[in-house]
């Protein structure tokens, strides 16, 4: 990655620094509430989950859709970069921006479950899968934002990915090979866990590769 690309990535970090910091703090507050006991656990985790999902959506909208809508994209594209460079820089830069908050909040959630005495460690595999799903989910939103200039399409992507979180929690959480071990005193890393994780990683790789294969090759940039 060349110097200009690094500067443009640094630019995204600078412009979205308060969003990254604010979301990380909000998510950590959620985790602190969750640590207060079993009743508050659900409220805290809901705040944690909403924060990560909301952060991803707002980041993609601000950094890509709004850049296009507010015509700051013209300024960025007046710099010595190609369309392909722009797409690659956005994928790497916005993924890193998201990863910073996601990594802290995911590590916090996993640590919370591991250290809280009244929570079974059997929850850990599901928590790891949920964190992986949130990362894959963000990559879908990012991929959508890089491919469409239509607000309607982008809204559809956001609605679908948000619905997918609820579906994931209910469907994957209900898989007997995972659900049966949620209350276990020790985590069970069985084949179902690894299969779901593999699907999440595959989704992540596909959605992060698509912009390189499609959006970066566009000859017209509107």
């Amino acid at each position, binding site marked *: 990655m060349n110097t*200009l690309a690094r*500067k443009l990535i640094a*630019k995204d970090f*600078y*412009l979205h620094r308060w969003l990254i910091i604010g979301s990380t703090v909000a998510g950590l507050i959620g985790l602190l509430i969750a640590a207060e006991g079993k009743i508050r656990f659900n409220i805290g985790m809901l705040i944690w989950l909403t924060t990560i999902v909301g952060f991803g959506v707002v980041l993609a909208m601000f950094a890509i859709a709004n850049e296009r809508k*507010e*015509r*700051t994209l*013209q*300024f960025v*594209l*007046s*710099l*010595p*970069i*190609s*369309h392909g*460079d722009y797409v690659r820089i956005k994928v790497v830069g916005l993924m890193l921006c998201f990863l910073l908050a996601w990594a802290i909040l995911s590590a916090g959630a996993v640590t919370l479950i591991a250290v809280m005495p009244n929570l079974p460690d059997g929850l850990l595999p599901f928590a790891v899968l949920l964190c992986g799903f949130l990362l894959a989910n963000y990559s879908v939103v990012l991929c959508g934002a890089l491919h469409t200039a239509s607000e309607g399409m982008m809204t559809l992507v956001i609605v679908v990915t948000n619905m997918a979180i609820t579906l994931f929690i209910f469907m994957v959480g209900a898989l007997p090979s995972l659900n049966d071990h949620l209350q276990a005193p020790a985590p069970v890393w069985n084949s179902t866990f690894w299969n779901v994780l593999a699907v999440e990683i595959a989704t992540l790789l596909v959605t992060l590769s698509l912009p390189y294969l499609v959006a970066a090759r566009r*000859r*017209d*940039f*509107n």
Partner: protein
Amino acid sequence: MTQTKHIEMRKVRKGFRFFTLEDLSLDLEPGQIMGLVGPNGAGKSTTIRLLTGLIAPDAGEVRVLGHLMPDNQAIAKRDIGFVSDEMRLFGHATLAWHMQFVASIYPGWDPQYAKTLVRRFNLHPEQNVSGLSSGEHVKAVLLLALARRPRLLILDEPTSGLDPVARHELLGEFMDVLRDEDRSILFSSHNTVDVERISDRITFIDRGRLIDSSDKEDFLERWRRIQLQLPAGAKLPDLPHVVSRVVDGQFVTLTTNRFSPDFLSFLGSGVREVQRMSLEEIFVANVMHHREARGL
């Protein structure tokens, strides 16, 4: 050794659903200011988007500073300063941050010149861009383009929305850029007064086609409006190079695009007045003549 042309467009075509830019050929030599003039929807912005690599031609070839566009746009844009009236800076960052950001990218950034422009444009670097007025915003974008000392400045309607004083200041800055003979400017506008003031070459474009391109002085010398009074019962013969003729009884007003003393002597003693035309009048007459010729 021949210098590389700063802009070369050869038989360029770019089609959209309701508009097509057709068969556009255009050259800009180093040291020139070209005014690209056309009514709204003529294709000025499309031409500029092709030149800045934002879109690719369907046919033909676009070269900027010798580089094929859009394929080699990253290299070409190292020496291009592009400003559009639609371009926006990041609202939540200060002008100082933008200056530092652009300076870190362009080795040719001139900090002294940037400071001079900040003073001349009465800008406040510590102010957030979101707090700038529209005129200040255009000045800020221009500052960022000018202070990097580009070899080619491409300006898409840069003075629209500016008050007369600000326009006057900016046009002065553009002239300043040209003190270096290796620099050039392509300047699109529908404001013919601005174009007439600073351009030394003018290209007229209308409905996706180039209709005329020449030196400014050449346009001003070639175009004349001639008032004639014909003798009673006389009829004016068909004349070459007459783009419009308005007859009111014995009085005829001719507009020619190839004025010469020979043309005048051919008209004889009936000539009452020969008027020079402003660029705006030439532009309108040119556009109407070409639309008529194309049956539009």
